């Protein structure tokens, strides 16, 4: 579940940088290889193509399957029980975040959540599509979910670290979209 295992964009960035450097190296190697051309009239690496395909297939399937335990869908984590439910109503261009069972009323200017709570966010919109994006105070995007009119989208996040968190709309919803922000204060009290 996001928030528990620490995987995030840093890991993705490291993977991207590593493979990008490999790509640059591959290009350099290709140019070098042309200066040391062989006399083969057909593709010399053909014999390796089958093995390459098998290895590539195994890598991508393992990659996809290894993340099944991290799916961002609450229904995929039946063993995780939220300790708190927060209802989120989105509209152009503001969030109404309220403790359950309030929905669209008693909106908190800054939602307060005690540290260590596993929170289920129950989101919906009353007009157009929005995007509930949860950022830490240092700007890490730690969770998100689409917020669609006529449906309830849910996410679970474990606020194990205290501090200020921000909610930013991540789905273009009109011309006030850029300012659609709210705050969550996670404290130990």
């Amino acid at each position, binding site marked *: 579940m996001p928030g528990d295992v620490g*995987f*995030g*964009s*840093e890991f*993705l960035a490291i*993977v*991207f940088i590593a*493979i*990008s450097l490999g790509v640059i190296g591959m*290009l350099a190697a290709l140019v070098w290889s*042309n200066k*040391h*051309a062989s006399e083969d*009239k*057909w*593709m*010399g*690496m*053909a014999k390796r*193509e089958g093995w*390459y*395909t098998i290895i*590539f297939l195994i890598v*991508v*399937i393992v*990659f*996809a399957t290894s*993340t099944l335990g*991290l799916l*961002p*869908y609450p*229904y995929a984590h039946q063993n995780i029980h939220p300790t708190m439910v927060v209802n989120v109503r989105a*509209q*152009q261009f503001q969030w109404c975040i309220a403790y359950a069972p309030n929905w669209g009323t008693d909106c908190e200017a800054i939602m307060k959540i005690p540290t260590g709570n596993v929170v289920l966010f129950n989101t919906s919109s009353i*007009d*157009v*599509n929005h995007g509930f*994006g949860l*950022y830490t*105070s*240092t*700007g890490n*995007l*730690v969770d998100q*979910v*689409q917020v*669609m009119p*006529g449906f309830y*989208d849910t996410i679970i996040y474990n606020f194990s670290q205290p501090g200020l968190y*921000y909610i*930013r709309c*991540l789905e*273009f919803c*009109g*011309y*006030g*979209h*850029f*300012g659609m*922000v709210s705050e969550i204060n996670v404290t130990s009290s």
Partner: protein
Amino acid sequence: MATSQIEVKPEEGQRIVQIPSAALTPYTKAWVRRFLFLSFFDFMIAGTFALLMRTDQASAAQILGELGSPGVFGQLETAHGIGMFVGWQFPFTYGLCTYIFPKYMKRTIWSERLLPIIFYLFASGISLVWLACLFGFGPGWYFLFPLPFAGGPGGSSPWPLGSSIVFFAGMMLVNISLVIFCINIFGTAFSNKYNDVFNNSPGKNNSISAKLATAMGFDAYLPSRIRNRIVAYPVATIGAVVTCVDMFVTVWPFFALLLDGSWESAGFGSFMNNLVSKNFLWLNHHPIVYFAFFPLVGMYYTLIPIFAKRAFESSRWVRAPWPLLLIPGVGVYSHHIFMDTVQPFALQMMSQYMTMIIALGSGISVFTLMGLAWRSKYNWNLTARWIIGAIMGWILGGIIGTELGDPAYNTYGHNTYMVLAHFHYNALCGIVLAGFGVLCWIFPEITNRKWYSSKLSEIHFWGTVAFAFAMVTDFAVMGYLGVPRKEWSPVIPQLPFTTGYSPYLLMASLFAYGIAISQIAFIINIIMSLRSKPLGRADEIVMPTPEFVGYEPRYAPVALAIDSPSNTSNGNPPDPRGASGELPSDGSANRANDVPSHPRTGFSSPQKFETI
């Protein structure tokens, strides 16, 4: 892994020939020119929109003054995205495919009379789309219902509903042109009217299923006793057929969406809910990104053997990736909806694994293409460099795409600049670079003129490649920092950490200006080239083609014999007139050497054929 049990004689195999294709008629060439020039004209316009967007984001509305507002940004973003994915890509693909079949399959287009209809329908449609944006329409190039025509309390739709009706009407015209184009391509690929080796080989290609199998690469997976009853389609045509199949299948839900959008814009109720409309949108808007890409990959398979002066050892590996691109090309669509927890789980899982399969198809293609060039006497002419650059963009975009194609990691990248980096690597650093390369290659043939200046071509190449990769890498950095996409102002005072975005936004703008300045070289070059006097009919330029001798044996290793000199560095073909300025009197220029008829098939190559 064994590729074939057939022994290859040295004289068999693939030859590079320069033979005029009678199917590439002057009429067809004229329409290829029109489509391609329209596409690059649209590219320049849509690129200008992007430049304004970059300036707006970098300056937080200071430089552009009144132009720098969220409203204008939305209009620009809509016009730019549609302008590139539709305005550039559609006519480019129309033109490229209209060239591919006559050139490499020696078939005239099934109905040349449809070409002007496709052109004018498309041009009208894209004009209406941009007109709608001019009058305020700005929900984005992908538009999630009900934003295009509905707002919040008090009717806060920020643009006139008439503009959304015009937008939907324009998109319908564009997609009608697409349907007609696809029918034309299917007719060219599968019609029985052609009297050629693909229809009239004794005991081969007797059924439509055989033709379908080879036209989409499924023949790579068939046992040899069935494969031997199929005459393989040229790989360049496979990309065209695959992309048309994907688009033809997915255009119908999109028509339903456009009708619903028009209906709602006119004030009537909707006949689909928002989740269904989201599914219909992405069912079409994902394969759309492959529309030019697949035919261009077909061109990589066609051109790289020429530049590497080598043949693929087995055409089975050349054909094997295509089904892995065809089916997942549609099946991956739900990865755009990973962040909707109400989307059925089965569709999410299908899309996740389909994304991995399409990564595999891409990986096989890249290995095959790079493997052919490895340790070859590769000719690094301009077109070859454009193509290698495009393949690099393809790989980098593919890495990010694979990351985003997993729901767990999609959480950190969805709707951030990571998505922008992914499709700009694949689009700008991929298909656009390849598009310039292919234009560089076929321009002399379709215009019968040479390029005006190799220096301008080089400036255009190095400038575009350097600044495009720099800008998109900057996007990737911003993506990993969590910078949101489609924001007029990512930097806002309520979020103190966003001030850290500013240097990257400024850099992206500077690199965008670098790309724009590089296009000036291209514009001057193409105008001066077109203004030059065309060569006479006797000097008609014919670009090299790799051809199989007799089209048999099919999967045997082939030895390459080059009959014509390799291409010169400026993208122009070598001048067959030589030092004397006269064409050789023996007729050897622009003619293949006489090839004895193949002992197994009785056919000689090239085939003489008649079209009905």
